């Protein structure tokens, strides 16, 4: 494990008690406002000193209340991309991104700088002042600045939250490219599941200052118990898929371990591995093979778990080949169908509901969104 956190902290009317291990990958911290996400990352960065506990990165203790250890933020080498950018207004874009380089172990790495500038599309901005940049440009500069300081770990606290949807779509491919090229572990704080599904390998769900769920993103997102935590309209499984064909009518054939899906709006080339996000509320179940449906997207599945919540809904975890799907149906329907563990049935996905452009087109870890 790269980062190990075990902390307790209390504010007026709020207490945080978090214990977790974070590995060498992209870990998303998800939770509603006030769940303690920012407190958690601020403690890791050293901007907040917890009341009690221990934080260690690789083999270095960053914080230990019992030993009285609190390494100052400036010596932690943990990069931080803030929601509001926090660029230095009196410095040019170039001086901003070089700000931390003089404290990095190897100093300024010009090759790395050139690579980042190209990757983040900053060539035309280098001489400008932050005051003249758009929100999306500012966040790209903030990313480059944190990256070039040579961090051992990178924290991103809702870096896209202040941006509108078009700006988010503009910056997302940059984020994905950075993630794919980087060896630095990333902690990505978000309250947007679409972002989480697109970026994260691991997922920690926080609720009221506690870890409610944690694990591989695919597992957590397809865990029926996660449904109330993630929001019933937002919850949904992630499925890896391979693009096998693009048909002339604009539809593409995607191969999953449990069968094929036909979806519109896939821009990734043939052979690319992408991730599909299938929302639980967009999955219908049928005991018999459906016939005469308008949807081509039917996968044979086996019921793995049934989770009855407080309301009229039931969350069903379904196995499809090596993958897992999550469906949300009414308790009455489950009863009438006589759904039981281990039972085979058919999952129907409404593919036409997938909006153009929201299917990840680049890299092995892209995700399609199927709201």
């Amino acid at each position: 494990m790269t980062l190990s956190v075990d902390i307790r902290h209390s504010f007026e009317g709020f207490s945080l008690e978090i214990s977790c291990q974070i590995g060498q990958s992209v870990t998303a911290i998800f939770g509603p406002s006030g769940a303690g996400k920012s407190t958690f990352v601020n403690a890791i960065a050293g901007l907040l000193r917890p009341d009690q506990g221990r934080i260690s990165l690789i083999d270095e203790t960053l914080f230990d209340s019992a030993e009285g250890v609190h390494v100052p933020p400036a010596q932690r080498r943990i990069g931080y991309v803030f929601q509001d950018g926090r660029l230095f207004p009196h410095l040019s874009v170039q001086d901003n991104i070089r700000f931390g380089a003089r404290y990095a172990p190897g100093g300024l790495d010009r090759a790395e700088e050139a690579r980042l500038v190209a990757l983040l599309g900053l060539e035309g901005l280098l001489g400008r002042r932050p005051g003249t940049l758009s929100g999306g440009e500012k966040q790209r500069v903030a990313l480059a600045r944190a990256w070039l300081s040579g961090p051992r770990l990178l924290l991103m606290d809702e870096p896209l939250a202040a941006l509108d949807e078009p700006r988010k779509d503009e910056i997302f491919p940059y984020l994905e490219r950075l993630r794919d090229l980087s060896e630095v572990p990333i902690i990505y704080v978000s309250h947007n599941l679409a972002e989480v599904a697109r970026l994260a390998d691991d997922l920690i769900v926080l609720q009221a200052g506690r870890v409610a769920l944690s694990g591989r993103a695919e597992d957590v997102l397809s865990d029926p118990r996660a449904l109330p935590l993630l929001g019933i309209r937002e919850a949904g499984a992630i499925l890896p898929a391979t693009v096998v064909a693009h048909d002339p009518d604009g539809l593409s054939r995607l191969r999953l371990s449990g069968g094929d899906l036909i979806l519109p709006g896939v821009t990734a080339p043939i052979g690319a591995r992408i991730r599909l996000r299938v929302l639980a509320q967009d999955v219908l179940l049928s005991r018999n093979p459906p016939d005469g449906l308008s949807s081509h997207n039917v996968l044979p599945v086996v019921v793995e778990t049934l989770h009855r919540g407080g309301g009229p809904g039931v969350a069903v975890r379904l196995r499809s080949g090596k993958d897992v799907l999550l469906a949300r149906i009414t308790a009455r329907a489950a009863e009438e169908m006589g759904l039981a563990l281990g039972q085979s049935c058919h999952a129907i996905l409404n593919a036409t509901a997938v909006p153009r452009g929201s299917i990840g087109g680049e890299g092995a870890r892209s995700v399609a969104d199927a709201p």
Partner: protein
Amino acid sequence: MNLTDAEWAALALSLKVSVWAVIISLPFAILVAWILARREFPGKALFSALVHLPLVLPPVVTGYLLLLTFGKNGAVGAWLAELGIVLAFRWTGAALAAAIMGFPLMVRAIRLAIESVDPRLEEAAETLGAGRGARFFRITLPLIAPGILAGVVLGFAKAIGEFGATITFVANIPGQTQTLPSAIYAFLQVPGGEAGAIRLTLLAIFVAVGAVLISEWLARRVAKGIGRT
């Protein structure tokens, strides 16, 4: 305008005293302003009151206190005299009086500037590896440059105009401690001195307007320099 040698000397002394007053008090003013803006400690209100004291005390009282403290027999003055430093009745004493009178004005201007710097920018610098000194010199100081400039202008103006504390502490010795206001006062004390007083008054106005114009020009350049245009 034909100035006599004594009048030129008064102008030169005023400028010298004021420049030195600003130079010696500026580092302390920045430090005190930073403490007042960014630190919490018991007795802060008292500390703040002490800093602002010269602003509210009658200047003559400040001058007299300086004389008591820094005079030849004063607590600090006697000790400094052993080191060969004499302040009372010297131009250096005039500079000290001007510095102390202008100090609260400088602190005020700089403190406001520091309070307007977003501490989250300093936090960001911290996560990038900058220690306390680097954060101050690379982030805070450039961002408060307009406030420092404003403080310098106020301190300089106060120093040029300072009269009460100066005349009490260092008297009114031509060529030694006679600044522009003291010289004007001296002219007014003798019959037929009005002409000289008016010449020096015009000179004082000229110096003041010049200082304001220069500071306006500097302020624009500084604002541009830190991306505030």
